[in-house]
């Protein structure tokens, strides 16, 4: 071992000289490695800058998609209106037959929610030929889109002082009774109470005035209300 030194013996008989066979090299220690700088904390803006292209791409995609969806929705609505128009003309036209009315109303129900407002409007003036097909169409839509059908019909039932005849109220009660309208209970009960109290009036289009519901009409309304409420 070049740099090993034997331990001095414990005794006092030591030689006067001590030859050490060793090489001594003078070396300078390497300069200490520079301490690495602590990692600099990035400013949030830098992150933002890095993410900017991604953000722009996402926002652009979102906006484009929203705009495109909006346009498409409008185009679809316009297309629905155009396509429903002929069917509505046939349904409310003077020369419709029962079979035509059934076919037109049934096709209109295939449009789903967009067909509800025109069907409700058509129901308001419907006669003996048009009423059953329109009720059927609303029933068909309501089975899939209950809310879309329930809202307008419950508003009609809940507002006896509107320009709605008792025949429209009857149809509305019949349809609401057949589909799952969650808020129908209190509205139907209110209507039933109004009949029982004798306070219910109905719109008479011939006089543009409200008249007391005739007894036979009250009886028919009550029968349909009972059926509708029994299903809740």
């Amino acid at each position, binding site marked *: 071992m070049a740099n090993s030194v034997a331990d001095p013996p414990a005794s006092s008989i030591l030689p006067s000289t001590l030859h050490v066979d060793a090489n001594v090299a003078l070396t300078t220690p390497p300069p200490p490695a520079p301490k690495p700088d602590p990692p600099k904390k990035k400013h949030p803006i830098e992150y933002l800058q890095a993410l900017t292209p991604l953000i722009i791409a996402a926002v652009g995609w979102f906006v484009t998609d929203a705009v495109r969806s909006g346009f498409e929705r409008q185009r679809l609505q316009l297309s629905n209106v155009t396509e429903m128009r002929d069917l509505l003309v046939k349904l409310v036209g003077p020369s419709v037959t029962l079979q035509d009315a059934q076919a037109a109303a049934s096709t209109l129900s295939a449009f789903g929610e967009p067909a509800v407002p025109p069907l409700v409007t058509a129901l308001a003036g419907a*006669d003996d*030929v048009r009423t059953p097909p329109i009720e059927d169409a609303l029933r068909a839509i309501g089975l899939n889109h209950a809310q879309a059908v329930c809202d307008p019909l419950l508003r009609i039932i809940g507002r006896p002082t509107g320009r709605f005849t008792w025949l429209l109220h009857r149809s509305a009660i019949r349809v609401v009774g057949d589909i799952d309208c969650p808020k129908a209970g209190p509205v139907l009960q209110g209507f039933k109470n109004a009949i029982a109290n004798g306070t219910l009036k109905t719109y008479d289009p011939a006089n543009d005035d409200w008249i007391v519901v005739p007894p036979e009409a009250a009886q028919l309304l009550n029968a349909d209300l009972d059926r509708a409420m029994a299903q809740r």
Partner: protein
Amino acid sequence: MKPLVLLACALLLSATTTAQAQIAPCSGVQDPGTKILLDEIVASTPGAANLLQPLASRLDAGLLQVQTELGLDLNLKVLPCVNRKPTGPADFTRSVVDQLNVRNVVMEVWGVTTEVKDAQGRAMQEASVGYVLVPVRLNELQSQRPPGAFVIPYRARPSDPAADLLRLVDQSGRLAAYATLAAGSRALRAAQDAAAGRRPRNTTDDDWAVARKRLCAAQALFGSLKPPAAASDMQLTDYARTLASQTITGAKADQKYAGALKLQPENLPCPTGR
């Protein structure tokens, strides 16, 4: 092969008939008041459709006369319905009849007429006239008792087109008998519903007595029809008699009723004669 051809012809005919079924809207059906719908009479005579309005007026006058004679107040109005052409009783389903009932339609009449030659080569008018008695049809659909919708065949020598049509539709006073029965049946139903508390009681009129008066009048009108009586007429006469007796039974059972019928024997027959 021959049966197949016949079957094909029958199917084609049935398809054509279905395609021609036209229950079209009738203006005025939404108006208040009790109504009889007079549908377009499909006639081989040209311009028969133009006779619909005068025919309705003449029927109105005829019904008014019968009501005056019998002391009835049916307050009926005959509405002409252009383009409304039912094909048969089967068109009057529960849904169709219900819609007519809620609009105070008591009866609907339709007809088809053609000119044919008899064995001697003389021109004859052959027709089928259909009647729907709405309240009776509603009962029929529930209990299948009397016929509420039926077709009566008709054959006569043609004369004046308007007179022919009137004769065709009225058929020796049948129209008045049917209308009175329909109105009586409706009145009886109203009295029964009021007694059961399903509708408010009529405070001005005696519902039971009104119903009985109409049903007895209908019975008398059926009795005065010229023979031969149609099978449906005989069934309807029995039906009118049954309903008339129900008025006394109902009145006696009605605890809030204090009218004259309460004191009558249950088997009291209707007075005979018009």
